[in-house]
């Protein structure tokens, strides 16, 4: 769809040839790379995700294989050498578990829960938001009333009540996070779709006689994606933080799924006796993860909205 194709070759010597339009992806990557802080965030995020993915191969021990744990190694300070001759760079917890290994395994669970919950919430919210915007009328009113009602309660409260009814568990917390987050995506999708609906390309598609479903998902959807991707990034961070909070409170994940929140919770009792590392290091890992995601999200917000570029 290059503009230059339509120009007659004869015009070339007189008018300087128009540059072929840059692909949007290339522009986004170039603009993104202009912020050192955002690049740092991205690098940090990649390191964290890679470390979590490769945890079984790069950790000194499998923290949940009881044969590799020794009670003699319990509550060692960071850097101390354990009974078996292994160094515990980040210390060990009450069961003699290496904190570094436990943190990487915890990151896997935290990331997985955040990604699954957020992606599902995005899909549900996106579909409902687009439907509300495109069909309007009563469909719109019903969906948006529900969204408004939902958003008037703080997320932590909604999640807490849901988990009080559903009980602890991996599936339950994912369901709770999806229910907490879909409304945010629905509202954003509707607002974006409403502003896109009046554009010429939608009118063109309508006059071509395309079906509503096809216009909705084939034409409207791709144009609504940029702001939603920004929201998605930021919401992953808040999903991970919410899961950690709920697990810390003892209503989230069960003890068999030791996410970062549970690790921090386990270490809390030791903080009072000065053994800070059991709680502090998983917390730093959680903080780094959240900050990295937010840095990337903030920059994406600037890059995907051309008006904001300075």
């Amino acid at each position, binding site marked *: 769809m290059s503009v230059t194709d339509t120009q007659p070759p004869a015009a070339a010597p007189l008018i300087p040839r128009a540059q072929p339009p840059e692909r949007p992806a290339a522009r986004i990557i170039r603009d993104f790379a202009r912020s050192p802080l955002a690049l740092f965030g991205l690098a940090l995020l990649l390191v964290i995700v890679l470390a979590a993915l490769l945890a079984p191969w790069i950790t000194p021990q499998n923290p949940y294989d009881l044969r590799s744990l020794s009670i003699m190694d319990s509550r060692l300070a960071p850097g101390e050498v354990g009974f078996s001759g292994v160094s515990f760079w980040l210390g060990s917890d009450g069961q003699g578990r290496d904190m570094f290994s436990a943190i990487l395994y915890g990151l896997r669970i935290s990331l997985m829960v955040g990604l699954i919950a957020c992606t599902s919430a995005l899909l549900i919210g996106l579909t409902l938001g687009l439907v509300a915007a495109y069909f309007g009328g009563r469909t719109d009113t019903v969906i948006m009333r529900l969204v408004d009602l939902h958003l008037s309660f703080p997320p932590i409260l909604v999640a*807490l009540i849901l988990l*009080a009814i559903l009980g602890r568990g991996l599936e339950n917390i994912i369901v709770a996070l999806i229910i907490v987050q879909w409304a945010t995506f629905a509202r954003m999708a509707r607002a974006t779709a409403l502003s896109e609906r009046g554009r010429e390309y939608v009118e063109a598609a309508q006059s071509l006689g395309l079906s509503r479903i096809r216009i909705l998902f084939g034409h409207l959807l791709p144009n609504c994606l940029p702001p939603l991707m920004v929201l998605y990034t930021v919401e992953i961070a808040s999903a991970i933080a919410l899961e950690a909070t709920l697990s810390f409170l003892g209503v989230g994940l069960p003890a068999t799924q030791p996410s970062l929140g549970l690790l921090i919770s386990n270490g809390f009792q030791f903080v009072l006796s000065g053994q800070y590392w059991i709680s502090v290091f998983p917390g730093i890992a959680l903080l780094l993860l959240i900050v990295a995601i937010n840095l990337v999200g903030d920059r994406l917000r600037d890059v995907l909205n051309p008006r904001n570029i300075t």
Partner: protein
Amino acid sequence: MVFVIRRLLQALFLGLVMSALVFAGIFAVGNPVDILIDPDATQAERARLIAQLGLDRPFHEQYFIFLGNLLQGDFGNSFVYNRPALTLILERMPATLELAFAAIVIAVVLGIPLGVYAGLRHGTPGSQAVMAGSILGFSVPNFWQAIMLIMVFSVMLGWFPVSGRGEVGTFLGIRSSLFTLNGLHHIALPAINLAIGHLALVIRLARSGTREVQAQDFIRFARAKGLSEPRIVLVHLLRNILIPIVTLVGMSFGGLIAFAVVTETIFAWPGMGKLIIDSIRMLDRPVVVAYLIVIVVIFIILNLLVDLLYSLIDPRIRLDEARQ
């Protein structure tokens, strides 16, 4: 007046909808018999309670009975404490409200000056430091930040007590730990912990408001008139950035009560939030249901108050509504 009545009716309607949702939720998730009756009850007791609670009647009839009981303040007894659930919650409520109040005071008293400063001196290192701090306050998970506060200020430095509410004083018939030195000493850390997230929000709002208002004609006119800088900032500027902040404070009061769950659990603050977490852990369902209803009512009242306050500060809103 029309506006007030309309908002009251809306709030009432919302309350009805929410009570129906809660009721349907209890129904959809499991057998209400299991939720409302102690699992240790004998067969005869169960049958008696089912008849007493009207669980053998049709759905809509049961909803009206449920609603009737709620309106009479009957939420059932706690399994753990064997006392009325509502009484338990209302007893704990002052501790939570006082914590949320202290947090709001901290957020507003520190947040507005910092935000206005960052807005007026935009681009200076001081302003950037304030904004960086607010971003950090935003990102640090509340519960971990509480642990760090305890670790640094209670365990390492020993400045503040680790947990509890301290002495409670009485002033004008209100019992609160805000009225004793020992109580203030106890409330400091939990209140700061609860405040930090909202402090960051207040700073952001005050800053963007200041930058927006500062460029407007009436501020330039005030400058041209030769008014002193403090008068411009305190009278002309502040009044015009207050609306979003008042909304935030009103809305966030609900959020603070919700987030107090985390703070109260960590600092062993004897409020509603700690009660609900304990009740969820011990499967004390009547207390959970009662907490849910109480919190919904609090939220409806808060939303109503914010709207009313809003129309007091900015008469344009009331006029717009009336014109429709």
